[in-house]
């Protein structure tokens, strides 16, 4: 199939357009296949994280011991000030900032400004790496405090297993994303995509924004609730 030329039948808006997209004898989704596959992958990943968070809800609802107060568990003493959840707040801001730089990288990639794209992607990867670093610090602190998957000093034993499972799986996604971004950024810098076009940067960006998106839910449900 010639995907290079574009059918102008992808113009009807709304429901009529959706029916036309599905019913006509043509490619249903007007986009590079890699981008569609990334979306489908992210949909399946959404289910994985939803199941983690739902099972966390389930064990928290059914625990008879009181649930540890995340606000105090994750508090830090900084310069003599007792700040609740401060590290988590900083991690949230770092990840949002990395999403911002990634969104701009995608924009510059389509404008074929390779220099800016590479720099913005490198900044994104660096912010992602610092996020993972802060998470490692947080894990170390909690393990020193005696949090284990089977128990902790403050209350319901399920707290530890939910915490390590959910943040661990998310941290793994961030780490994989940093490697992914580094590889794509290097190939952009080499000029590998001058012929093929820069959809790959948008695809990598989709993954990265998804990691940020998952953190929004973890932040709300695990740390704030």
């Amino acid at each position, binding site marked *: 199939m010639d995907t290079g030329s*574009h059918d102008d039948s992808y113009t009807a808006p709304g429901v009529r357009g959706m029916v036309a997209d599905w019913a006509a004898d043509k490619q249903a989704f007007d986009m590079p296949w890699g981008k569609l596959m990334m979306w489908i992958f992210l*949909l399946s990943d*959404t289910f994985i994280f939803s199941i983690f968070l739902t099972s966390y809800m*389930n064990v928290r*609802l059914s625990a008879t011991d009181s649930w540890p107060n995340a606000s105090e568990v994750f508090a830090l003493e900084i310069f003599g000030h007792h700040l609740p959840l401060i590290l988590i707040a900083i991690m949230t801001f770092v990840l*949002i900032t990395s999403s911002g730089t990634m969104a701009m990288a995608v924009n510059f990639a*389509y404008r074929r400004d390779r220099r800016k794209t590479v720099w913005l992607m490198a900044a994104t990867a660096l912010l992602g790496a610092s996020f993972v670093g802060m998470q490692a610090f947080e894990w170390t602190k909690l393990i020193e405090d005696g949090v284990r998957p089977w128990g902790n000093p403050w209350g319901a034993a399920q707290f530890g297993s939910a915490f390590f499972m959910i943040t661990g799986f998310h941290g793994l996604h961030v780490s994989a994303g940093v490697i992914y971004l580094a590889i794509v950024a290097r190939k952009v810098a080499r000029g590998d995509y001058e012929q093929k076009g820069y959809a790959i940067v948008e695809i990598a960006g989709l993954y990265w924004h998804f990691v940020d998106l998952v953190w929004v*839910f973890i932040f*709300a449900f695990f740390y*704030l609730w």
Partner: protein
Amino acid sequence: MSEAATGQQHPIGIYLKIWALLFVLSFFSYLVDYFHLQGFWRWSLILLFMFLKAGFIVAIFMHLGWERLSLKYVLLLPLVAILVLIALMAIEGDYTFLTRQQFFDT
């Protein structure tokens, strides 16, 4: 020519604005905890800021707002299954809690 051919192309300003907005929303949700809000306002504000942030990330940063309805439905309809799962597991969790209270606690 459709948008996918040239790729999503929007002014840089919109990303900076959404970025600032996400910062503000995150700061607000941090304040919910900082000021020890409890009960109805805590839960509803956490959920409000969460859905606003998630919506802006998906619609603007991931460009879903500009995609065709075909893709929107493919991505958003399956989420109904998750809502069903959440409802079922909430009922299940409550039931387990009541059973445990009846048999474990003295």
